[in-house]
């Protein structure tokens, strides 16, 4: 939310945007703020949407059902089967579909009026999702190869043995630290940056319209149009990040199960 107190000059958005005051249970460990409320609302809406549109699923789908089928089919064909293949893909399809829909819905909350903030623009949710992916691909690796998973992923074959001095530390860092970390940070930072841009545009519009003298309000038109442009861009980014998150989760699982690294 833009914090433009009337008549007190322009306030640029800051990191405090993402830590709004608590609305329920203030001062207890169960503090509940606006962003968490948005997450709950989005989750309920997502469940309702998926439940209502597939409750009476027919062989010839109606309008609501065909939209859901389009989305489900996109995840299955474009992401899961193209990376993992048909047989391995089938096992991870439920997990990856769930990830895709959660990330997509939480991202879109950032551009829905009155919600106005993405559930993924605070670190909690991206970290939880990244940990789920992390556990999944490590378990997938050990289940497929047993303890040999460590050898396969940390000592890639076809490399002169002396190079392991260099490669193994990098691979340890890569597999156990950087992959989950970047997965969470990428999603978080994208949604955070998008929200800041939106707030900046609309806060500037407010400031220019109501506090600028002379011809200055005319420049406010530019920031207003820019704000709508960025809203459209955010819809695109929200979709792209959901796609990339799921795609990378699939790629990491595939790398774990792959025989030759």
């Amino acid at each position: 939310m833009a914090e433009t107190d009337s008549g007190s000059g322009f306030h640029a958005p800051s990191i405090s945007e993402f830590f709004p005051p608590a609305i329920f249970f203030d001062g207890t460990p169960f503090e509940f703020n606006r962003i968490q409320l948005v997450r709950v609302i989005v989750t309920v809406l997502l469940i309702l949407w998926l439940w209502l549109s597939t409750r009476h699923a027919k062989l010839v789908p109606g309008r609501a059902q065909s939209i859901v089928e389009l989305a489900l089919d996109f995840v299955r064909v474009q992401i899961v089967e193209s990376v993992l293949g048909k047989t391995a893909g089938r096992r991870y399809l439920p997990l990856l579909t769930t990830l895709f829909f959660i990330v997509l819905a939480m991202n879109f909350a950032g551009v829905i009026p009155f919600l106005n903030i993405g559930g993924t623009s605070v670190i909690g949710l991206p970290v939880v999702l990244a940990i789920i992916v992390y556990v999944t691909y490590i378990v997938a690796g050990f289940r497929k190869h047993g303890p040999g998973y460590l050898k396969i992923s940390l000592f890639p074959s076809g490399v002169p043995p002396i190079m392991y001095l260099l490669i193994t530390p990098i691979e340890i860092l890569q597999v156990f630290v950087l992959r989950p970390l970047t997965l969470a940070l990428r999603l978080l930072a994208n949604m955070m940056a998008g929200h800041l841009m939106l707030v900046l545009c609309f806060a500037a519009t407010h400031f220019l319209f109501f506090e600028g003298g002379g011809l200055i309000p005319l420049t406010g038109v530019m920031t207003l149009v820019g704000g709508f442009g960025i809203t459209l861009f955010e819809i695109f980014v929200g979709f792209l990040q959901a796609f990339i998150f799921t795609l990378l989760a699939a790629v990491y699982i595939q790398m774990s199960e792959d025989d030759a690294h």
Partner: protein
Amino acid sequence: MDNYAELTGNIATIGYGLATLGPGIGLGILIGKALEGMARQPEVANTLRTNMFIGVAFVEVLALLGLIAGFLFI
């Protein structure tokens, strides 16, 4: 005489601008090459696009680390 080149505030605020340079070049090369490949061989466009997005994700996270660092260390 006043010093007009004086810098006030925190120099970390220009950090993100610098952090976008490398990934910007990287993304340009990466997406350009992918498009080149798609134009040459339209039949593998889908594979190229998927792999391009994976690469984009890796490059893009560098720029985003700059953004995060800007907020953390300001």
